[in-house]
């Protein structure tokens, strides 16, 4: 029996919706991967020279928006995905636009919050049951994430699940960040769990909890591009030196 229809919690203002990015399949992803692989090393070197960390955004209270990605076609597929070199890192920037659209998708952003609580639903309302992050990102004493979320999605209750369900640490909070800020946060080992680009790609491509984004259970929109395509974008981005946009869209 399907869980009852989710309505956004009474009283919570509904965030403005942004149209989801449309995805396009590229048939030359292999070429892009190859190019990306070579570029990863170069990019890692570039990253180790560091950049200024984006100011950590601590947002009190409900954050409106920061929802689904900016509409636009250029981000996914296109030149970067075809592995074509583009002048001045534009390919990398385009790839990043595709990546950031995923990062801002509710399935990701709902746990990459900058607040003491997760969000849920495609409308990103604050998680029901007064759920809080707790001291270890796994809920508070008496109401741990694992109180309800188990190792697999539960069709009986409608509660999604993956092993060790928990929030991304605050340092990995992405709400309210502009593209530029998000890019820098993503690459900064002080904020991304000490990951280099390869480990970052690994996280996005293989982490079992991240897999939830593509297998969220009934009533939830999955991340709109396949995980393999995200991997391809990561490779393209890394291959282009993991460039960050200079300013870019503010995420509300």
């Amino acid at each position, binding site marked *: 029996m399907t869980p*009852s229809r989710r309505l956004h919690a009474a009283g919570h203002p509904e965030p403005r919706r942004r149209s989801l990015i449309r995805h396009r399949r590229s048939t030359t992803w292999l070429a892009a991967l190859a190019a990306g692989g070579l570029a990863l090393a170069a990019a890692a070197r570039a990253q180790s020279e560091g950049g200024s960390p984006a100011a950590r955004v601590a947002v009190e209270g409900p954050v409106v928006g920061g929802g689904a990605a900016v509409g636009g076609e250029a981000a996914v597929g296109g030149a970067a995905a075809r592995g074509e070199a583009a002048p001045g890192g534009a390919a990398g920037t385009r790839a990043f636009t595709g990546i950031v659209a995923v990062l801002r998708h509710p399935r990701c952003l709902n746990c990459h919050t900058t607040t003491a609580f997760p969000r849920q639903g495609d409308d990103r309302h604050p998680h029901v049951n007064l759920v809080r992050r707790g001291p270890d990102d796994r809920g*508070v004493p008496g*109401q741990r994430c694992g109180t309800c979320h*188990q190792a697999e999605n539960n069709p009986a209750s409608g509660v999604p699940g993956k092993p060790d369900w928990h929030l991304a640490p605050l340092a990995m909070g992405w709400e309210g960040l502009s593209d530029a800020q998000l890019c820098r946060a993503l690459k900064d080992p002080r904020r991304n769990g000490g990951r280099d680009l390869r480990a970052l790609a690994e996280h996005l491509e293989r982490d079992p909890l991240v897999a939830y984004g593509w297998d969220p259970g009934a009533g939830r929109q999955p991340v709109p591009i396949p995980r393999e395509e995200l991997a391809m974008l990561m490779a393209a981005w890394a291959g282009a030196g993991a460039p960050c946009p200079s300013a870019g869209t503010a995420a509300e």
Partner: protein
Amino acid sequence: MPELRVNGKLHGVEADAGTPLLWVLREHLGLTGTKFGCGIARCGACTVHVDGEAVRSCSFPLAAAAGREITTIEGLSADRSHPLQRAWIAEQVPQCGYCQSGMLMTAAALLRARPRPSDEEIDFAMTNLCRCGTYARVRRAIRRASGQAAAPEVKRG
């Protein structure tokens, strides 16, 4: 036949692996103290302990229970002697009582992690729903069981 360890005893259970632990407890083991309230992990009436942690058993499949220690309200004590049960009686907490098994199990998990919980910790741990509205007494009883004075502070400013 899969085995389930509940309240210190081993039980053989013949049920589909996806059966919620809630219904295994109630119907296969006859432990009806754990209650069905919503089926979507919202109300907490189904709360039990799995390896000492609070779990909403309507959302916990039988398959996941293998090899774990399950404790239900029947196993909280043999004789109503758990400090929370004593406090619940002293403060006369229950009204209809249907939510109270889950309420007690959540409170017990809280006290295990936080022997002297603050009001804030109580607020955000005790999200079990009580239709009769026994919340003020639940709070007092938790504070009593944890050796704290009765009344919470309500900031007037």
